[in-house]
């Protein structure tokens, strides 16, 4: 097995074009496990962890770019104002794993249990891809097309994710049957977008890919409009509306029974998390968090 060691992005894309079967490796927290367990033997590895373009995050023109090579540890230290992303990063494995694992790994592996993915979905992120002769962006839901299936072409690398910075509170929660270091049984990210007057809810581990609860989103945005909450964060949302929102979120889940949990519990958990996350967001707005 060859290991390719590009020093620049340009070089990396050339190598990838010449050897499309080369599997990108950054932190190795997914790839090395597969290798060690002899589950997957790629022809070659391409080590992308030294490419500066992938290791940066930046804000420009109201957008946020998060490089594929940024580790969860760095997100927690450097991007703490992005609450849902930081919370999701905190739930990834152990400190050692967070110091190695990258957002690009979640994207490339494409497991619906990837902890960062519901956050990117709730942010409506575009995934930026490049090959030697073109660059393109793909919306998050067009990038992950099935369980561990992505729209990545063989000659492409994932550069990172880009999304419009959102004004408004949000959170990420993850269910697991122990209190740390656990693969997601169900995950939920809720983001309130004060400017767009929208609520976006994404679910992890309850379908073949990360899902958005679109009906619930529309429903709750309308309820917030009806109650006047968008203009007056002190205005209460009717309790019934909270419950109806939670039910709609649960209905969006497409869970299965597996070794980590039952479909019934996953659906139930989505409802509980949805109600809680909305409650936290409304409370944060009342208290003025995320407002200028």
């Amino acid at each position, binding site marked *: 097995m060859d290991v390719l060691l590009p020093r620049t992005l340009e070089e990396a894309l050339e190598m990838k074009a010449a050897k499309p079967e080369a599997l990108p490796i950054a932190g190795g927290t997914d790839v090395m496990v597969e290798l*060690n*367990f*002899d589950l997957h033997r790629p022809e070659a590895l391409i080590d992308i962890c030294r490419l500066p373009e992938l290791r940066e995050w930046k804000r420009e023109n109201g957008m946020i770019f998060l490089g594929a090579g940024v580790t969860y540890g760095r997100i927690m230290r450097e991007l703490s104002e992005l609450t849902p992303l930081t*919370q999701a990063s*905190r*739930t990834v494995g152990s400190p050692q794993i967070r110091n190695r694992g990258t957002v690009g790994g979640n994207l490339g592996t494409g497991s619906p249990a990837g902890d960062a993915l519901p956050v990117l979905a709730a942010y409506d992120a575009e995934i930026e891809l490049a090959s030697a002769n073109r660059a393109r962006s793909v919306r998050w839901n067009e990038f992950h097309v099935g369980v561990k299936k992505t729209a990545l072409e063989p000659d492409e690398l994932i550069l990172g994710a880009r999304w419009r910075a959102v004004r408004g509170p949000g*959170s*990420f*929660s*993850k*269910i*697991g*049957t*122990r*209190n*740390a*270091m*656990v*693969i997601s049984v169900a995950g939920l990210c809720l983001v309130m977008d004060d400017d767009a007057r929208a609520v976006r809810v994404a679910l992890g581990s309850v379908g073949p890919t990360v899902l958005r609860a679109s009906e619930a989103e529309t429903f709750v945005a309308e309820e917030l409009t009806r109650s006047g909450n968008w203009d007056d964060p002190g205005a209460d949302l009717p309790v019934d509306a909270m419950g109806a929102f939670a039910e709609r979120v649960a209905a969006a889940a497409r869970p299965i029974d597996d*070794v*980590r*949990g*039952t479909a*019934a*519990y996953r659906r*139930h*958990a989505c409802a*509980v*998390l949805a109600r*809680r996350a909305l*409650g*936290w967001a409304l*409370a944060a707005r009342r208290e003025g968090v995320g407002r200028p």
Partner: protein
Amino acid sequence: MGDTRVRERTRGGIGEDVARIDGLPKSKGAFAYASDLWADGMLWGHTLRSPHPHARIRSIEISAAVASPGVHAVLTAEDVPGKKTYGLEFADQPVLAWDRVRYVGEPVAIVAAEHPELARRAAARIVVDYEVLPAVTDMKEALEPDAPKVMEFGNVLRHVRIVHGDPDADADVWVEGYYETGMQDQAPLGPEAGLAVPAEDGGIDVYVATQWLHVDRQQMAPCLGLPMEKVRVYLAGVGGAFGAREDVSMQIHASMLALHTGKPVKMSYGRAESFLGHVHRHPSRIWMRHGATRDGRLVNIRARLLLDGGAYASSSTAVTGNASTFACGPYEVPNALIEGTGVYTNNPPCGAMRGFGAVQACFAYEAQMDKLAAVLGIDPIELRLKNALSTGSVFPTGQVIDGTAPVREVIERCAAIPLPPEEPTGPATRDPITVPGGAQNVGHGEGLKRGVGFAAGYKNTAFSEGFDDSSEAWVRLSAGPAGPLVEIRSAAAEVGQGVYTILTQIARSELGVERVILDPSDTNIGSAGSSSASRQTMMSGGAVQLACGAVREALFERVRAREASSDPAGELRLEAGQVLESELPLGPIERFLDEPIEETRVFHHRPTEPIDERGQGAIHVSFAFAAERAVVEVDEDLGLVRVIQIAAAQDVGSALNPRSVEGQIEGGTAQGLGLALMEELQVVDGRIRNASFTDYLIPTILDMPPVVSVLVEEPEPGVPYGAKGVGELSTIVAGAAVAAALRNATGRELNRIPVKPDDLVGLAEPPTSSGPPAAPDVPGPRSVPEYFGLGAGQMEILANDADDA
């Protein structure tokens, strides 16, 4: 003379919190575990395992594997040099399967190659033609007459029937319950590993992480066709055991490959293979009916226990014996009928795990005690105190407790430990990491219910039912370059429990010498018995004490012969490197050590009896008791749990190293808490679905609460230093206490552990049974295979009969 000044006492002796001698290297990553073993030119072994729970082997084609690059040997059952089967209690387990495989993961062929990868690839090229047979993977179905037979003689391993008093005695009040426990794994962090090195004398030297060197050798030698003395077993660094290393794993396979190739062969299981390569805790189904007087005295207990032993016997018969004899808990009951059955199935074999049958029984009888308390309207702790065993009490087996039995004390002292303060439960009032769900941010204090649960339990120390699991020790006292030096040799396996440190503490106290060297454990000395059954402090500690005593007497003879005594009747004593006579220093010990003194001694516990037809007999050596109280917080909406505090009181006899005892209580509690909340091998149709640490969850530090321990010290008569075994009790009671606390918090039945989130939010129905599990019509009370002439393993040691082949 300045150097004759006497310090108060010898440092580092018994009763002190002596630091673990393996603690620093393990903490710093410098400790060499079995998986770190290396020999020049060594080959790597790999095991091909059965993919089927039950199948006939039509043929095995190895030619492609033999022709693979780097391969030095591919061996099957035909190549086993001697006896084809082995086993701890009965030799019913094939070294390599021929004819039939009985569980998923059963070894079928072994390969030695120059690299583990080459060995693995070659193994993948072995073609085994299987005819898949119907499998029995449910313990209850195994008892049905038309069930597929795992063994020719049927599916019953052992049936124990204990008849005590009048089993038909009536009571004012009855409570009935049905309970299930899942298949827990020992999950030692160090997977099975060892290195077999062929010796010039045609024998083999095997370095392996194990719990009992001599029982390994006992099983290895006949299979290898070697005399016992040509199989030498050395203890390699053990990364946890908890019962998982009591059975042979890679020992015979690596030895076969090494003898065949003439090269050292290392075998080192990966995590997934480790789950297939050792036995597990028996899943159980238990039905109980408790009768009591209106004022809360137990009158009669009926119990039926069913344990899934899996495909081979391992130690299932002893586990069945324990679960059955302990079924009534640490309580006096005048009448009882207990029927316990261990069965064969096509599930992975089950055997020894910390608690050894007592864990399953405790979960059931403590739930029953709570049920009874609720029906009678009596405080659960008061009910337990009212029925608590004490010295002189009689067990359902007729055995009278003649040692200490501070059951009341452990219950009272545990209950007296202050409860943790109530925490604010409103939203956003505390750090989310402290609520159920921990680091995952699922709640800010919503839906929390606190619950408190209590459990008491007990277990025996050392082996039972007539087994003489003796321990030998050799001690040498000599003049070293820096004063007197003690050297100890014992085959006791340090498995992380601290026995090495205890043995050195004992030598220091017995000989008044602080410099103690412990030789590596191997089979060049007599057996120390197993590092299991909470027995090493008592047994190997006892052997070192005896040997030290003999060395001391020899030294005193020299002293008396050489010193013109000022006080011929004066008592000699050793302390802090000095010989004292009537508390006055005679001189440094090394003055009398121009020749070293060596002594070897064997410690035997008192004899026990086999169990008889009515389940009667003084079958256990000594008993220890414990109580734990769990305080939990349940997120009622999500069914997630945080244990807030464990209060523990344990009957330890006397604590030779209090810090180590507390460590054992905490570690054992973590394992019991794990069983209650998360640890289960999910076996479906005979296949383990979660053979990884990704999906077999064990508690993290965020799942473990503070453990407040109280050591109840009432020295046990007739036992070295009065010290009882301490390794298992907290595991036995922790699971039951946590489950009780969850019931208290939620009001739900929760009659199966591990308790799942689905159970706590009411999405899953509790398991039920239509009446007690069946009691089979088989010979008893001994193990069924015995009636069919299958005897081997430990029984050979007992019979001192090493020529079975």
